[in-house]
């Protein structure tokens, strides 16, 4: 097995007494697509900044590309592409110029930077926005430009912090498609997200993070297998009745979870459970059978939803 490109052990970041990241350990292999899934405030971004060699850890051990970021920050950063949570493109520069000036920060010759900027504008599907002002780009375009900028140094590892937060569904799919291509080309991706569908689409393996700690680790499919059932039946009886009905559902399915707006019944066969419920003389306002998702894993692990 090739040596991991990231090794974190007992990694901790404290702000005064508050531990934003509280002793997490993980490894990322080259070419792998690795995700940190968790709600806002779980410590994902803080972890990303430490991995990005811009935030000094409080304790624990961290090696990126076999180097300690405390000692080799610039060297490590020379091998990374970083897509931060909030776009920080230079709005005083035109779209393509953002790539050009950024490429120079890696000590790349102007000629190389110019050529790569053209290639990446095409990759980001922004060929006709070369001279556009950054402020005139849509949210999805800005995001793609930010990703193009992060690729200007042909990075070994691409760090993406909430890459599609705030984008509309279509823009998200375009972005996922671009990221999937990078993954196919063998770029190591590390991304944080609080979207389970994003994690399922892009991650080979992920850790579920909550309150600065890792709750579980595995591939999306393995996590679902381990922490959830194959199917989920969602029934709604109206927000004032859900709690009361749930008591009568004891024994139905493998597990029942009551949320404010609906009841989740975990089972290998959702349709069969729905029949049981109807046989009990209960008639839900709406019902839905679906596959288990990472959302269910998260709910099981923490008792809370990902998006609150």
């Amino acid at each position, binding site marked *: 097995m090739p040596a991991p490109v990231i090794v974190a052990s007992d990694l901790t970041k404290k702000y005064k007494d508050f531990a934003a990241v509280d002793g997490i350990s993980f490894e990322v292999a080259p070419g792998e697509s690795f995700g940190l899934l968790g709600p806002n405030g779980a410590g994902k971004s803080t972890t990303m900044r430490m991995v990005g060699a811009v935030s000094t850890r409080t304790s624990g051990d961290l090696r990126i590309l076999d180097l300690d970021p405390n000692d*080799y920050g610039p060297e490590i950063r020379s091998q990374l592409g970083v897509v931060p949570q909030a776009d920080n493109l230079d709005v005083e520069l035109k779209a393509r110029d953002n790539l050009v000036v950024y490429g120079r920060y*890696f*000590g790349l010759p102007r000629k190389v930077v110019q050529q790569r900027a053209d290639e990446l504008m095409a990759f980001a599907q922004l060929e006709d926005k070369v001279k556009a002002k950054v402020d005139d780009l849509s949210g999805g375009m800005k995001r793609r430009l930010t990703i193009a900028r992060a690729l200007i140094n042909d990075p070994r590892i691409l760090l993406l912090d909430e890459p599609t937060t705030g984008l509309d569904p279509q823009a998200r799919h375009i972005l996922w498609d671009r990221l999937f291509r990078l993954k196919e080309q063998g770029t190591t991706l590390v991304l944080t997200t609080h979207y389970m569908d994003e994690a399922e689409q892009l991650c080979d393996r992920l850790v579920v993070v909550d309150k600065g700690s890792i709750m579980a680790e595995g591939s999306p499919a393995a996590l679902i297998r381990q922490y959830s059932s194959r199917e989920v039946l969602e029934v709604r009886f109206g927000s004032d009745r859900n709690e009361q009905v749930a008591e009568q559902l004891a024994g139905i399915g493998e597990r029942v979870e009551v949320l404010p707006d609906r009841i989740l019944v975990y089972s290998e066969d959702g349709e069969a459970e729905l029949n049981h419920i109807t046989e009990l003389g209960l008639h839900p306002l709406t019902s839905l059978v679906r596959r288990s998702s990472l959302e269910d894993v998260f709910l099981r692990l923490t008792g809370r939803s990902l998006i609150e």
Partner: protein
Amino acid sequence: MSGTESPRGGSVAAGSASGRGAQGPQSEMARAAIAAGTLPRRWGALYVAEHRTRSMAAYKGTIIATGIGNPVVYLFALGVGLATLVDANVGGAGATVSYLTFVAPALLASAAVTIATEEFSYPILGAFKWNPTFFAINASPISPRQIVDGQMLSVLVRMVPSCIVYFLFMLVFGAVPSPIGWLSILAAVATGMAVGAVLMSYVSTLQTDSGQIALLMRFGLTPMFLFSGTFFPLAQLPAYLQWIGWISPLWHGTELGRVFSYGAPEPIWLTVAHVLYLAAWFVFGWLASRRVTARRLNK
């Protein structure tokens, strides 16, 4: 930074990475990273200056217009217009040079300070906050110190030519009797950078702009222009107000410029003091900016 000394092999690392790491990294990926870090470690500040200078191009019209308009307007209004009044009234009373000659190096230094206050105030806060480009740059191999240094260099790229243009207009107006008058350009640039560096170190600490910068301009910088011996000698002020001039870098820069541009008489120790005082402001502001920026970017 850990202080451990490390005997590390590989010529690529030579000189760029002393005292880092407990053991020399051996893997291919580590060596590649160290090789790629060499140029940014050495030239990072220049890359930042290149970027900032390109951004300035967005308002190059303003830069050129003020660079040419300022000297013409001020030299004409004060050095020619107001001068007729001043020269007529003060002429015999101890004045050794024309009012134009007296006021020109002060206006030059003021122009440099004006550029510094423009470039080291809102653009700095903006780069931390409204358009956080400093964070973007910091995610590349560039260090916070290099960001600060590059910012300083980029301001010089604007300030030096502007001061040269100003000086050329001073020559055209016949305001520079001394053959070493051109040194007043250096005095002006030193003044601008001294004020600018300290301003940057302060602005870098601001989390939000709730009017602090505007207040500073109005109650700090504007009075500085009025009480720094710019338009009249400091000695004309009542004794209890003269201290404002003594602590003002603009007064020191102005007096230094006068020594160069028309040989204003003053003891040599005072000339040396002007230089040292400006240097002290600059070094303090520069180091403080580096420290504040490093802290702010390392969240």
